[in-house]
């Protein structure tokens, strides 16, 4: 049990997918203008990453490896991820039109979010079991959501602050997120 907890902790905080591995930066910069849409984006990405991690594990272990088709790995993973994202988009459009409007173009762009493909490929590399790879995907997505939420909160504060003209807009956001990355490096001292 503690092994699984440690895996979750290590993927969410210590090896954070955004701030330590630098995957999936586009939605972090793009959808972090308000906490509400950041939460929606985080939940949608969590759903996609967890489902894609499980589906890609099954495909890899039950189809690609027995048939010796390892060279088709990226192709099949992208196919599965695209299908999962399409499904998520349909679901959100049905369930919450407001969220669908506020996520806009970033929702279909989850397909090209490198964190999704990155997690699926890292799963294969580390030869996890199915449950562990689901947990790995969920933990990474949790880390992604946490960073997105913290960063959206910070940006909401920055929007009210007086920023020097040369730093206004994107530059101050990049400075902020690099400071956040420095803070997250502190978790590597946990040694899990």
């Amino acid at each position, binding site marked *: 049990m503690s092994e699984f907890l440690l895996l979750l902790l290590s993927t969410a905080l210590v090896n954070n997918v955004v701030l330590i591995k630098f995957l999936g930066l586009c939605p972090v910069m793009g959808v972090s203008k308000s906490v509400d849409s950041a939460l929606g984006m985080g939940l949608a990405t969590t759903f996609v990453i967890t489902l894609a991690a499980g589906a890609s594990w099954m495909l890899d272990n039950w189809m690609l490896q027995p048939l010796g088709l390892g060279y*088709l790995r990226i192709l099949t993973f992208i*196919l*599965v991820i695209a299908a999962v994202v399409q499904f998520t988009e349909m679901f959100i459009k049905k369930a919450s039109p407001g969220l669908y409007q506020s996520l806009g173009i970033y929702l279909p762009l989850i397909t090209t979010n490198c964190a999704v493909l990155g997690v699926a490929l890292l799963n294969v590399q580390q030869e996890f079991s199915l449950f562990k790879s689901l947990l790995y995907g969920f933990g990474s997505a949790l880390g992604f959501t946490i960073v997105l939420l913290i960063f959206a909160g910070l940006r909401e504060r920055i929007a009210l602050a007086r920023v020097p003209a040369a730093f206004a807009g994107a530059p101050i956001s990049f400075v902020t997120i690099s400071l956040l990355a420095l803070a997250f490096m502190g978790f590597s001292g946990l040694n899990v």
Partner: protein
Amino acid sequence: MIAAIISLTILGAALGIILGVANKFLQVEGNPVVEELTAMMPGSNCGQCGFPGCSGAAEAIVSGSAAPTCCPPGGKALATAIAAKLGLTVDLSAMSNEGPKIAMVAEELCIGCCRCSKVCPTDAIIGAAKQVHNVFREACTGCESCIEKCPTEALVMRPVPVTLQHWVMPKPLAA
């Protein structure tokens, strides 16, 4: 190679079927009136009405926040058609029926003040300070926001000139 082709085909077909079924069950009913109006509009998404594209304008007209006359390229014909569809009465006296227009710079009047290029939403006006400005015909949406900024009235709206890019042969006379 055969295994790769077959397995990817099966995978693609399976995912396609799943998405097709999901699409059936998660279908969102759009407002049919909005969709009909969108089909009636010119569809060039020129932005002269001030809404994001023709579908945005159609939504605004249906919800009542815009008049049926808000589409300049559609002209009188579109306004009457929309009004008939929605059962509204429209005041057509303010509508001109001259087809789409774009901005043009009268070069003998332009003093190169750059005020027009600053307000252009599509960056269609080229020109530096104290140089005569000009308008990119392809980029101008005819929004008219530059017209009132010009201190010398050098900017005027003119019908879109016929160029080699969009000239079409006139239809033959009916017998």
